[in-house]
């Protein structure tokens, strides 16, 4: 069970590091997508299929689509400029994997502390996802409606071409 988990976490984490590390944006986005899929697997493994499916469809799919759209809309750089950009990029990021490794190691070595830090021993809850969502999280649903409206109006306001645009 634990080993299983560690492997899946690795499947999530390594693409994420690549996403940060890759010099070209499109590669970063694809790595992010892969990491999201890894996260989905982790969520499935935690017995949270609904969150997993959501993560896969929205968190991985929709966001990747949005990012790819944006990246393709940006102007590509000239050859020499992009080479220079790459070198600078790697110079800034090469410490990241080392930091992450160290941080992970330190955290893992101190894991007893963390185990004791979580004192709760809760009982298994029988309510289903739907019951909780509709029965208890009504306010969140209203909030979701609100934020979706914000998104819709936001995109309308930001992209509608009026007199003041351009």
């Amino acid at each position, binding site marked *: 069970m634990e080993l299983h988990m560690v492997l899946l976490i690795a499947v999530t984490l390594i693409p994420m590091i690549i996403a940060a590390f890759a010099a070209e944006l499109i590669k970063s986005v694809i790595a992010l997508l892969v990491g999201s899929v890894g996260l989905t697997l982790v969520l499935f493994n935690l017995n949270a299929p609904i969150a997993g499916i959501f993560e896969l469809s929205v968190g991985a799919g929709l966001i990747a689509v949005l990012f790819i759209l944006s990246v393709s809309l940006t102007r590509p750089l000239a050859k020499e400029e992009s080479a220079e950009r790459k070198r600078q990029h790697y110079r800034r990021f090469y410490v990241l994997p080392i930091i992450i490794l160290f941080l992970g190691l330190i955290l893992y070595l101190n894991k007893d502390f963390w185990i004791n830090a979580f004192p709760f021993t809760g009982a298994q809850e029988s309510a289903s996802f739907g019951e909780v969502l509709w029965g208890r999280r009504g*306010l969140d649903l*209203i909030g*979701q409606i*609100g*934020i979706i*409206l914000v998104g819709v109006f*936001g995109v309308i306001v930001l992209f*509608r071409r009026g007199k003041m645009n351009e």
Partner: protein
Amino acid sequence: MLLAYILVPLLGAAIMPILRKIWQKGTDSVPILVTVYQIIITGWIAYQGIVLNGSLNLERWILDQVLALRLDGLSLVALLAIGLVSFVTVLFSLRYPLDEDRRPGYYALILLAVTGMNGLVVATDLFSMYVFLEIVSVASFILIAYQYDEFGMEGSFKYMMLSAVATVFLLVAVALLFAITGGVSFGELAQGVKTGGPVVFISFAFIFFALALKSGMMPFHGWLPDAYTASPAPVSILLAGIVTKIAGVYTMIRLVLEVFGFNSVFMNLLLVVGAVSTVLGAFFALGQKDFKRMLAYSSISQIGYIMMGLAAGTPLGLIGAVFHFFNHAIFKSLLFLNSGAVETATGTRNFDELGGLAEKMPVTGTTSVIGLLSTAGIPPLAGFWSKLVIIVALWMAGFKFFAFIAVFASIITLAYLLLLQRNVFFGKIKQGLEGIREVSPVVYWPAIIMAAITVFSGILFPLVYDKLLNPVNSLLGLLAK
């Protein structure tokens, strides 16, 4: 009943695109109606004293578990402030040169921001609070960038990134607390927090960091002047007057009261951060040459006061903090209204190009004097009472040094506000400005309203105390011991 606070502005926003097609004029009146409705309802509740006596009448406002909403003294003050500030924002927007084609969308976003703030204020669980917080933030990003200018985009992006970090930390803290308590409502969290331990400490640290970032306290203030300065004038009224206060300060007060209690480590930290913000914010304001930037730094400084009042950890301090929160919403939006009026009349905010405007713009000049005196805490205006209560509370709680800081920061406050007054309004009229005229009544009436509130809540302090601040005391019953 309480749900109306969320649903009315939400519906108002949702019908905007329809209204735009069928009744163009309605797009102007709906936001006004919605905000006036909020002011009247909240004022009525305050006047009736429904939440005055704490728990008994409190129960009536709690719906069942589906939608656990609550109205208590603190949220009452916040709702009133939200109503007032958004009302004057909308009123100011009526004549502000916005792109007509996108105006309905603009109003919709303002109403959604109001929805978010109202929801945040009446929510009783941390996660819902986060969702509404995010509505407010995302709506503000768009509003800041509304005019497509470079500064707006940049201010918006900075606010966005820092706020993203803040919400991530807030959510991780929620997750940590959820792991040990098994719930996200304030009650459940408070139960779990009592057990203590490192996880509680870490989550409180995360929340503290997130809210300090959101409220723009001193080490994390970088985004705030940029966002305020870059946004269109009416948006900066909304932003400075209420959005950052609800997003940062209100949430902090609420969480300290209901979940964490007055933890001494964090209260001391809050006290220090508050004092640093108060003093440095005032000093930075002293060096500004831009009307709005000066006001933005002044906001940082005033937030420091509120935090210090909260950190005193006594009922008196809490009352002072809440009253200053309310006053700050009023006088800061008044000053931003004035800056907006000056900008519309003269086309600039730079002190070097302004001067002697009081002659030409008597209403703006007079109301700005009232606003600045209230900010500096000069009696008998409202700002004086709240600062006085905070200072008394700090002294009585034994934080004498901080009481000193609070007192002397108000001198610096007065100094930079006099600088502002001298450069913009007082004195002889600058060359090239002889032709300017007072802005239209739609623009200056909001300023008069705000100035009147400042004056009367100062003079009628006993009434304000009875109706608005006394209910805050009932909160102490909720205080996590």
